[in-house]
């Protein structure tokens, strides 16, 4: 009896527009299913962070906050840098759901010659991958550089978003980047912190505390908003706040601390740091997909 079952990526995409908060749930569920499917096919990779941050991605890419053209990515656009590069399964699934590349390509995650590298590789030229990341703490500085290029030189009015993990904040250079963002008054810069308090070795506050986080970010010169990272209304309000800051020229960068649960949406993964860096087995994937609303057949006895 094989535990494997056919994986089908539904060929649907979603458009990017202002929408009522409740509409994001359906998009997030699709992204979560695509994450589980690509990970079970890959046989390795990170499950917890991607599932935990999916709601943030759903709002950012499908709520009209990031401006992009999925048919021709490399045109004038807002920038998103996934500083926590290991969380790329959620970025790949999100981009595929915008129509930036065929959803079937999610099958190739972590495979030989794939554009979906284990950590994002700019050399592969996948639409939506602005830079290689994976060595923690670097993406946020790259994003600061991008925000400087527009705010201080080009002034085309584009927005720059970056997402870091919370364990990532133990990398000192993150705070160098934060200092620079405030120093140059980068109100076009939005730093999202996926705060699930989980990292590979355990709870962030036990491995090496980064707290108090809100006070730290504020002391570094950010306009700080703490939200429930699974509440679409709160996420929308936070991004609206950032865009207002950016448009009125507040002179302050924005930090959104999103309180999330690692592995959100899959009962046996939720809030368990053990799921930081492993994929589901086929049997676990079956259960996960069912919990996420997909009808997966029972294994057939041989």
């Amino acid at each position: 009896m094989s535990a494997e079952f056919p994986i089908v990526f539904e060929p649907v995409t979603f458009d990017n527009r202002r929408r009522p908060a409740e509409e994001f749930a359906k998009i997030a569920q699709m992204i979560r299913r695509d994450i589980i499917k690509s990970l079970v096919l890959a046989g390795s990779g990170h499950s917890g962070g991607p599932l935990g941050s999916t709601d943030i991605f759903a709002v950012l890419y499908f709520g009209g906050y990031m401006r992009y053209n999925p048919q021709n990515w490399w045109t004038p656009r807002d920038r998103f840098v996934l500083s926590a590069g290991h969380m790329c399964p959620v970025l790949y699934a999100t981009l595929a759901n915008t129509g930036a590349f065929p959803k079937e390509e999610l099958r190739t995650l972590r495979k030989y010659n794939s554009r979906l590298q284990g950590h994002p590789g700019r050399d592969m030229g996948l639409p939506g991958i602005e830079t290689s990341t994976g060595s923690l703490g670097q993406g946020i500085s790259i994003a600061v550089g991008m925000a400087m290029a527009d705010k201080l030189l080009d002034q085309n009015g584009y927005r720059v978003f970056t997402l870091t993990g919370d364990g990532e904040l133990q990398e000192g250079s993150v705070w160098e980047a934060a200092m620079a963002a405030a120093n140059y008054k980068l109100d076009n810069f939005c730093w999202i912190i996926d705060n699930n308090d989980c990292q590979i070795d355990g709870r962030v506050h036990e491995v090496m505390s980064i707290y108090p986080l809100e006070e730290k970010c504020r002391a570094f010169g950010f306009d700080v908003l703490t939200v429930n990272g699974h509440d679409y209304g709160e996420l929308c309000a936070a991004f609206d706040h950032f865009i207002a800051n950016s448009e009125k020229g507040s002179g302050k960068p924005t930090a959104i601390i999103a309180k999330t649960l690692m592995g959100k949406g899959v009962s046996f993964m939720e809030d368990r740091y053990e799921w930081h860096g492993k994929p589901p087995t086929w049997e676990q994937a079956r259960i996960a997909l069912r919990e996420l609303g997909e009808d997966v057949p029972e294994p057939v006895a041989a």
Partner: protein
Amino acid sequence: MSQNLLQHDSPPPIVTMSKPSQLRGMKPTRQGFGEGLVVLGERYDNVVVLGGDITGSVMTSLFKERFPDRFFSIGVAEQNATTIAAGLALSGKIPFFASYGAFCALRNADQLRISVCYNEVNVKIGGGHAGISVGPDGATHQVLEEIAYLRTLPHMTLLVPCDYLETKKATIAMGEMVGPAYIRFGRAAVPFFTADDTPFEIGKAQVFREGSDVALIACGAMVWEALLAAEQLAKRGIQAKVINVSTIKPFDVQTVVDAARQCGAIVTAEEHQVHAGLGGAVAEVVAKNFPVPIEFVGVKDSFGGSGEPEELMEKFGLTWKEIYAAALVAMERRDRGLIGYRAVKDVPHYHPELLEADGQPAR
């Protein structure tokens, strides 16, 4: 460096293939970098410079005064500056970041590897205070290891020009090429001897003096020392070829292999550890293509220390005299064959008796 380093026992006239001419004076290579940046700023609107708090010392201050709107201070944060530069490059800018090599090649090593080289972005790094000639600042600031690291990075271009003018030319050339690049320069005033028409091309080593008895292959300030050594060797009837390897990566394999074939004995000279730098690069291509004896002049697996540049160059064995002695050893190894190898010291030291044989008093 004071005049006295230069005025060796008798400053010889350099006979060359009309390339580097006479000594034109003493000038620090960092000045060539600073002036080159200003030229680039004039030519290209998208050249920007990031400062790491030592702008006067690495002479990015010249650009800052001239183009204040395109200069951004990042503070004492080399990791951040390197990655911000990557972000600027990904937004169509040509960012230069300069600091001391210890901090902008090694402190930020991971940022260079991932955000600059793996990303293959158009980031340019100026690494000052290279080598032992930094002087009184001491070991922490005398970077002697970065050539070894930088030349292993895929996509990286690594330039080590030999004097002020070549540094200026190289700075302009690195701004005009596309891709990650690093230029190494020093603090002290060193011999300035190339001319406006001395050829410089990224990826091309230049033969500064012809000869077929031994090849002296050098980079940076050691090129002048190699020319001095060649003059001394000529007094013994030995004609040395002197090659200036101003680009360590991509490496000019052809010129070095041709020299190995023609001379059969090689000395490398660099203001860097003898391991894995220019000498390592030469050894790799010679071992593969045309194995001949090689002697390595450089810092021998030690850190530097405080002192005046010329005192340190003497102490750490970075003068023409070590190159001279090494050339004799390399030729001896070539001529005596395998049996002779064991009889020869592994690392050349200054041999006063050899000089005395020439009637040159030992210092």
